[in-house]
């Protein structure tokens, strides 16, 4: 019983010592202000957290001896949901106002990015910390292509994908041969290089001022009130009133189709030799090589596919913002996408989708907490790794029947 108080008390004291300088003594010019609440609050939290964990630990060790081995092969995603959810997604935009529509579009973009990074991190087990680079390649590829070459949105989607994949391959080929965690730091460096070049090459990219992006047309129909790009406005063509919502609706629906296609592709791939090889590489690279699998090409395929998805996400991002500049492509963005994948449970598609929605929508609902957003994601990432490294939902394995 004594340890039950003593250990948490030690932790609390430690936290108090640790946090007093930073959160208790706040710099004010060359002087400082004393704030005694934050360190005390943190210490108190630490005390109860430690106590709670100790109690929890004792419970689970007692339980473990009784419980049996778990083998859960229930389909995680019942058939009904696979039909209902896409339908809901299709109906949803017609019920939303402009503000929430833009957030829904952002959520879809993050779903796309999450799905892409999920291939690399969740399935193939490679930590890519520079995913934002491919996102930037897609976004800037479209923006600059439009500015200099008059590239259209519809051409930009495949081109952006190919361009990002090419970047992925160029970076990946030498790096993927290396063992271990170096990949993480190289991709991190690469992401920063891309951002710095975009920021500093002012004559080409416009530097920090960024590039403007025109809204796409649909078979020559424009989404503006008056034709600007030499076509007919959509609302005139359809004979309905102009609404600024139309363009967002259009974007949402296009993006929705792309996301559906991506989900379909990944679901198929997971049940194909390539997808299995990704997961096998994540589990044990040496064993894979002993089975005749060329780890470099298999990893490269995952890397390129992830990059492709990121590139497409970038194109949509550029369109939805009407404008791109380097501040959208910092390391924080990569970390955010990584948080989505980690919280979604490394490898699980429904997990990634729910995490992306939570990560984009929750801060809008809890405005007061928006300052704490990244702090909370960081805490969640660490907590996940410690308590549930397999993610919120353990991905189910395919079961082969009738054998």
């Amino acid at each position, binding site marked *: 019983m004594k340890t039950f108080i003593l250990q948490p008390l030690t932790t609390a004291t430690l936290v108090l010592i640790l946090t007093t300088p930073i959160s208790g003594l706040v710099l004010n010019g060359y002087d400082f202000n004393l704030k005694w609440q934050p360190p005390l609050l943190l210490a108190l939290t630490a005390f109860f957290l430690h106590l709670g964990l100790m109690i929890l630990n004792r419970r689970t060790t007692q339980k473990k001896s009784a419980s049996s081995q778990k083998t859960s092969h229930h389909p995680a995603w019942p058939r009904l949901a696979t039909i209902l959810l896409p339908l809901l997604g299709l109906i949803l935009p017609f019920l939303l106002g402009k503000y929430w529509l833009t957030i829904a579009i952002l959520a879809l973009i993050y779903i796309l990015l999450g799905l892409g990074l999920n291939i690399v991190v969740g399935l193939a087990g490679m930590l890519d910390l520079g995913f934002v680079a491919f996102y930037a390649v897609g976004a800037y590829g479209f923006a600059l292509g439009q500015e200099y070459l008059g590239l259209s949105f519809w051409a930009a989607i495949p081109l952006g994908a190919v361009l990002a994949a090419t970047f992925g391959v160029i970076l990946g080929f030498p790096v993927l041969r290396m063992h*271990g965690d170096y990949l993480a730091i190289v991709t991190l460096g690469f992401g920063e290089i891309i951002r*710095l070049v975009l920021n500093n090459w002012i004559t080409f990219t416009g530097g920090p001022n960024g590039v403007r992006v025109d809204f796409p047309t649909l078979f020559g129909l424009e989404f503006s009130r008056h034709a600007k790009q030499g076509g007919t406005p959509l609302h005139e063509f359809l004979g309905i009133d102009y609404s600024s919502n139309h363009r967002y609706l259009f974007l949402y629906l296009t993006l929705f189709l792309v996301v559906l296609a991506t989900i379909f592709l990944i679901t198929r791939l997971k049940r194909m030799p390539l997808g299995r090889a990704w997961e096998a590489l994540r589990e044990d690279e040496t064993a894979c090589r002993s089975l005749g699998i060329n780890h470099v090409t298999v990893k490269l395929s995952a890397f390129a596919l992830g990059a492709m998805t990121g590139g497409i996400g970038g194109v949509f991002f550029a369109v939805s913002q009407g404008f791109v500049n380097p501040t959208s492509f910092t390391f924080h963005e990569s970390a955010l996408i990584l948080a989505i994948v980690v919280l979604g449970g490394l490898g699980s598609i429904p997990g990634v989708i729910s995490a992306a929605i939570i990560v984009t929508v929750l801060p809008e609902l809890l405005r007061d907490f928006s300052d704490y957003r990244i702090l909370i994601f960081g805490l969640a990432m660490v907590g*996940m790794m410690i308590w549930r490294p397999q993610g919120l939902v353990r991905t189910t394995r395919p079961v082969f029947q009738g054998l």
Partner: protein
Amino acid sequence: MELAILAQQTLNGLILGATYGLIAIGYTMVYGIIGMINFAHGEIYMVSAYVTAIFLAVLHYFGLANVPLMLLAVLLATMFVTALYGWFLERIAYRPLRGSTRLAPLITAIGLSLILQNYVRLSQGARSQGIPSLLQGSFAITLGNDERLVQITYVQTLIIIVAFLSMAILTVIMHHTSLGRACRATEQDRIMASLLGIDTDRIIATVFVIGAAMAAIAGVLVTLNYGSFDFHIGFVTGIKAFTAAVLGGIGSLPGAMLGGLVLGLSESFFSGFVNADYKDVFAFSLLVLVLIFRPSGFLGHPQVVKV
């Protein structure tokens, strides 16, 4: 005149390189002992810059005016608090993950650096902070004909002396004490070391503490030199210090210092003679190239992955 610029850039490079080297020690030792990149190490350095300023302000508040005493007190106090941060992170975030997947500690490290950054931002505000300059004045080194070659401030002198002194002390500790021997044994073969009665968990914690303390020295010195800092500084400096560690050969202590100096000098020359805007691009490209062509760095050993 050309010579003067060259000399000045060399000096800047040395200063920069010494701080990279000090931070690189944390990366290199942790990598050597548990084979993991501690991404949060750059943020530890950032925390130490804040702690430095806070302790200076506190000492000032209590009316301490003796500059050398003040500096020493701040250095020791910052080292203590920062080392405690290093120890704490290892204890709560990395130790539970021993024997987990390879990805888990890396993701945790990213999470930790987000936490530290935002904890500091929320506590101390987002704008950049500063300290008053304590040590003013400089030496001038002149050529024979009274032309000034290079100007070295007192702070820069202090940086070079303290950096090399702490490196030397660390080397002595690692090679001539039982703690150092235990560290090196754990690095060679953790399981074997634990069979021989070494408390490897404690050794790993010690390595985190040493790394953090060295980063704290860098934090104090850089803060004294530049006078200003914000909650972002850990990120870029962290990657560069890691580059230094890789350049010197990850796992090697002298390598960290050597890598730091090489990186500092080349970065300083690049920004002085080629293009200052792209100096970070240069450093990151160097990292990528080294990893591709010589992943074992200057002093590291190419490793055979045990099957």
